[in-house]
């Protein structure tokens, strides 16, 4: 038996996989004061439902996979360690300057961001290496020793070291580490060239700074989690979800916690990819995860999980770069809690402000008075006020109607239902734009993709989104409301290694490049034989980070060969680059050579027999027949069939208008759409004819 637990903002989701490979989903409220309690609570819920004690449930477990936002929360709330940055003389402002750039050039209300590590805790040391690895100034070891002594007095809890060109000659960074170790025994140190051997000093410095600052608390969190799980009877292996859509041993995460900083949204695409393949035999999928406040969207193309080379904590240019690639997920402020408002010019907006979980939408009657997407859904009849979240929260339809009437109907002169439909329309459009942004940026026509709806609020408008995008299929997995936990269950043990080594196609350095690839593959093999020992399958993928000469933004290209034997191999790489560039940017410079800045190897060790879950549990009761009046977008009121998800038989087809409800979500099946339940338990919908884009509220 295996467990995957994802601690989200509102709920802690648990997927239990039995030995037959069948998934069951459970939820418990997240407990921010002690998140591990929420993890144990979710296990209690599962144990209760499965009719056994928590100890015997955990005792039967071989693997416990945990997704946590503990690290990012610590950064956002400023609860990280007191951390120092050591850098070159003359470059103290490395974290202040960042890489420049700004969003909203006319917005002068946002102050210049603070550096990740205060300038007062950034220390300069003389010594300089150049790009060709030569030393033009030796490291001032005596001065470094004085700094180290001062740090001891300053009660520093962690140290990050980033020196220019340490990636080609790490001697100075290593020496600094030696001095720190002598003067500050026990204080964790992160060296930039070891953690993130890539070009661009700001990114490396930021990586090191973030990593060091997380070490003390993440070591404590992981230690406590492990101890409490052991106490509760778990004797298996503990893995943690990473930002790259893989899992790592908990102890490795404690040593380099930066790898989990953006893990929150990284798993939904992993699950989405598996369900697209299993249910629809497709390797192209848009995964849209709709929660209360954010809409996370990602694109799986050709079966690969999308990655971005630029990951920000917070907003671009206002936050901090992690310096690491991560699963490419675009988040916008759109979800069930998004607030609808009308500006001075009479334009309706939905979000990005959110009523969140507290005070929540007006219909929660917990103090919220702003009209939200959930309120609109209630007015339109999408939600059953008595069966929201399985009846755990009663909804107040009058409060919803009143909020919409006051803030939307009056300024726009619309009737309540038309206003509610308009809110859903705008929310849908915001989501469609977010999807269009990521798909068009990657040259993928959304019409060729399966749309996967995850998260509790996905069912409200996913058919509408699919129609707007022209997707032929919308898929809502059985465990869609816990897509991240399901993804964690399916993910591979993974490690990614990078070596900065410049090469140009015009004068290709065969020996140098092949030596780098040898070293990378050897490191991958060591990983496969170490943490990956006993895994079912191991694979190594090699990529080049390349560009046309004089470009500064590289793109990743899979190597067409394992090693470069001659000009034909280089030509194959150049052609692969041209193709990738054309796919992404619509142009190729066919006569140009390319430059390779870095080489990347990814090793994956498969932990599951099959990627996909084995199938749904049998329907729990015969289907019942109920109807309710619902307002559908672009259609108006209709009597819709109301079904319970757990009663739907495999292969049973239902035509819209209908709504399918479960204790976790409600799925709206518009008139013209058809839904069928797949053997896995997923709902597969044919969205039907697309409406014209101007929409009719």
């Amino acid at each position, binding site marked *: 038996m295996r467990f995957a637990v994802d601690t989200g903002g509102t709920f802690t989701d648990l997927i239990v996989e039995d030995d037959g490979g069948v998934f069951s989903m459970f939820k418990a409220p997240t407990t921010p004061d002690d998140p591990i309690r929420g993890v144990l609570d979710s296990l209690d819920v599962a144990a209760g439902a499965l009719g056994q004690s928590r100890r015997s449930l955990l005792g039967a477990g071989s693997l416990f996979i945990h997704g946590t936002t503990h690290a990012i929360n610590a950064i956002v709330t400023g609860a990280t360690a007191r951390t120092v940055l050591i850098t070159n003389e003359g470059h103290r402002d490395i974290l202040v300057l960042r890489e420049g750039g700004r969003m909203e*050039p006319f917005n002068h209300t946002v102050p210049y961001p603070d550096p990740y590590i205060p300038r007062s805790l950034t220390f300069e040391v003389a010594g300089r290496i150049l790009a060709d690895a030569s030393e033009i100034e030796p490291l001032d070891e005596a001065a470094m020793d004085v700094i180290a002594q001062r740090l001891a007095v300053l009660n520093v809890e962690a140290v990050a070291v980033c020196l220019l060109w340490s990636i080609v000659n790490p001697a100075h960074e290593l020496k600094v580490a030696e001095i720190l170790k002598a003067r500050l025994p026990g204080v964790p140190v992160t060296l930039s060239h070891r953690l993130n051997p890539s070009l661009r000093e700001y990114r490396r410095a930021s990586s090191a700074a973030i990593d060091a600052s997380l070490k003390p608390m993440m070591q404590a969190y992981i230690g406590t989690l492990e101890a409490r799980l052991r106490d509760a009877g778990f004797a298996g292996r503990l893995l943690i979800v990473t930002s790259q859509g893989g899992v790592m041993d908990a102890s490795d995460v404690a040593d380099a916690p930066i790898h989990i900083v953006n893990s929150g949204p990284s798993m939904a695409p992993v699950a989405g990819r598996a369900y697209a393949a299993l249910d629809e035999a497709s390797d192209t999928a848009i995964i849209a995860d709709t929660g209360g406040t954010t809409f996370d969207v990602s694109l799986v193309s050709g079966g690969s999980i999308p990655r971005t080379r630029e990951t920000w904590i917070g907003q671009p240019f206002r936050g901090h770069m992690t310096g690491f690639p991560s699963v490419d997920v675009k988040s916008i402020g759109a979800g069930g809690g998004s607030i609808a408002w009308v500006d001075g010019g009479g334009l309706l907006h939905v979000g990005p402000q959110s009523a969140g979980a507290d005070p929540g939408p007006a219909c929660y009657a917990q103090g919220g008075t702003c009209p939200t997407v959930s309120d609109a859904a209630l007015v339109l009849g999408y939600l059953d006020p008595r069966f929201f979240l399985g009846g755990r929260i009663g909804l107040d339809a009058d409060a919803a109607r009143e909020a919409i009437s006051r803030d939307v109907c009056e300024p726009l002169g619309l009737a309540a239902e038309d206003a509610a439909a308009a809110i859903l329309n705008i929310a849908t459009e915001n989501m469609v734009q977010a999807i269009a942004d990521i798909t068009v940026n990657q040259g993928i026509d959304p019409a060729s993709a399966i749309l996967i709806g995850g998260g509790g609020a996905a069912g409200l408008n996913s058919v509408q989104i699919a129609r707007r995008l022209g997707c032929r299929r919308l898929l809502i997995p059985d465990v869609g409301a816990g897509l991240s936990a399901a993804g964690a269950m399916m993910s591979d043990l993974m490690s990614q290694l990078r070596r900065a080594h410049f090469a140009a196609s015009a004068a290709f350095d065969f020996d140098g490049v092949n030596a780098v690839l040898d070293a990378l593959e050897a490191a991958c093999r060591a990983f496969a034989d170490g943490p990956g020992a006993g895994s079912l399958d191991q694979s190594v993928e090699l990529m080049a980070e390349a560009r046309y000469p004089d470009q500064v933004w590289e793109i990743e290209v899979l190597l067409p060969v394992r090693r470069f034997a001659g000009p034909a191999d280089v030509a194959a790489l150049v052609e692969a680059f041209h193709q990738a560039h054309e796919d992404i940017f*619509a142009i190729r410079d066919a006569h140009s050579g390319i430059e390779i800045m870095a080489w990347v190897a990814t090793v994956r060790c498969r932990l599951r027999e099959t990627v996909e879950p084995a199938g749904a549990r049998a329907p729990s009761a015969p289907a019942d027949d109920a109807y309710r009046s619902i307002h559908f977008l672009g259609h108006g009121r209709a009597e819709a069939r109301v079904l319970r998800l757990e009663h739907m038989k495999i292969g049973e087809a239902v035509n819209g208008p209908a709504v399918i409800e479960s204790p976790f979500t409600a799925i709206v099946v518009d008139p013209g759409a058809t839904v069928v339940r797949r053997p896995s338990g997923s709902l597969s919908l044919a969205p039907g004819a697309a409406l*014209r884009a101007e929409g009719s509220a």
Partner: protein
Amino acid sequence: MSPRTGAPVADGVRLALLNSRLEGIVRKMANTLLRTGRSGVLNTARDFSCCIVTADCELLSAAESLPIHVLSGPDMMARSMKEFHPRLARGDAFLNNSPYHGCSHPADHTLLVPVIDEDGNHRFTVEAKAHQADIGNSIPTTYHGRARDVYEEGALIFPGVRIQRDYEDVEDVVRMCRMRIRVPDQWWGDYLAMLGAARIGERELLALGEEVGWDVLDAHARDWFDYSEHRMAEALSAVPSGTAERASTHDALPGFPPEGIEIRARVDVDGKAGRARIDLTDNPDALACGLNLSEACARTAAMLGVFNSIDHTVPKNAGSMRRIAVELRQNCVAGIPVHPTSCSAATTNIADRVANAVQAAFAVLADGAGMAECGASSPPASGVISGTDPRTGRPFVNQVFLGRSCGAAGPAADAWQTVGHVGNAGMCFIDSVELDELRFPLHIRARGFLPDTEAAGRTCGARIGYAIFGPRGGELDVIYNSDGNLHGPQGVRGGADGACSRQYVLNRDGREVEVPQFGRVTLREGEFMCSFSCGGGAYGPAFERPAEAVAKDVGQGFVSVERARSVYGVVTDEAGTIDAEATRLERARRESEGDGRDGS
């Protein structure tokens, strides 16, 4: 239209949906340009813009870009295209870099692609404009500040010349560029990037028109302009009616009168009517140098000052611009240039002075409106470097962005430090030290900010940004126009003025050697250029700055304990812990002495 009634526009829902679609298209164009451009000015400085104008040549939607690029000009270039090429066909593309035909300055090559529907009707024009690393000037810079006229400047001027027909290049034009432009492969790469962006915009607009109907898009444009105009009227009505005039002076160029070039802007706001009028006619005649503004830059700089002064969420398009009247005159340094007046550096030096004067004038009208002045551009650390790379024997020329600050304080927040200059607004990236040292034979010894150089105010202007750099293994030419050595950025409403810019060379003996303020300097191995940018002006008196904000700067190491006390009247220790009682007494004492009201 009465601005406060909130009269709803035709259909707020459809309007939002279609606007979002159009913004998606220009964003996609911009992303293509950024990621595929070859020159630093494009892929690092983001010195480009992408927009859609209507068939009537009105700016409809622009991607977020350098403000000086796009507010005015796309309209004029589209009109030139229609005038010179009355019969437009699908597959056409036109090249415009003429400051006499709507382009900002000759370095900004602009591709215009008419979007032609199935029936052959011209529906929209998409434009992709990108600053080139080189345009074939007489010296290797795209900002030839000292050029007497367009002939000495030396750029090839394209007043809306056909460069594609049936989606194929007009090779004659391409060959001309290749024969004239330094490092022609780099230009070619940037041309491809612009073309990719424009063609993507065309493709997406055709699909949108097909999907929703061209008439619906036309109706949308009308409604969107009305909506935007309404928002602008509402924003201007928040500013008290009145007239204010401010001057901002560009340092003297060699061979010109030493008092410099004073630029005056008069701002009339009629809050009740929701209108603003900017008068730039009281300025000197065009000068025999490259600093004269193009009409596009004169209008844009004036409007930039307005948009910087009001609610930033007002859409920037032809609709909102209906409420801004910009008065210009022919043959004026900040007006409408007459050929062969040179406008080589039209996007920076004088344009910055115009925008700064306008936003400072708004601050005169009301506390809470306008902004202080941003610092002047561009110190050597943002200059054009050129030479021959000793590692490869290949020539190189490129603009670098090693670090400058120049941000002005606004009423709501301290300066955005890395603004660069007012027309850039901080959009420019800053070069990675390692990336530059890899690409060019450079050694960047130091860069960052100078503590205790911020402009003190209720909100503070930027501190000095500096960089110290030199060649590795050969010689390096640096060309720059460093305005602001004498006339630094002015504060407003009692805020202090920002620091002036400065530059010198450190020779091999470690001695400081004076170098020209505007010029070309050749550095030998072992010599270093030391570049100090302007800061930016402050807003409001320093004694009104919250003590916590001062203490935070002290804690970061940006403001000394001594300066906190003497300039802000805040008593704190090095860690930034405030002595509240001592601070209260210090501020009260200064208040009674009438000290510190100008905050310096």
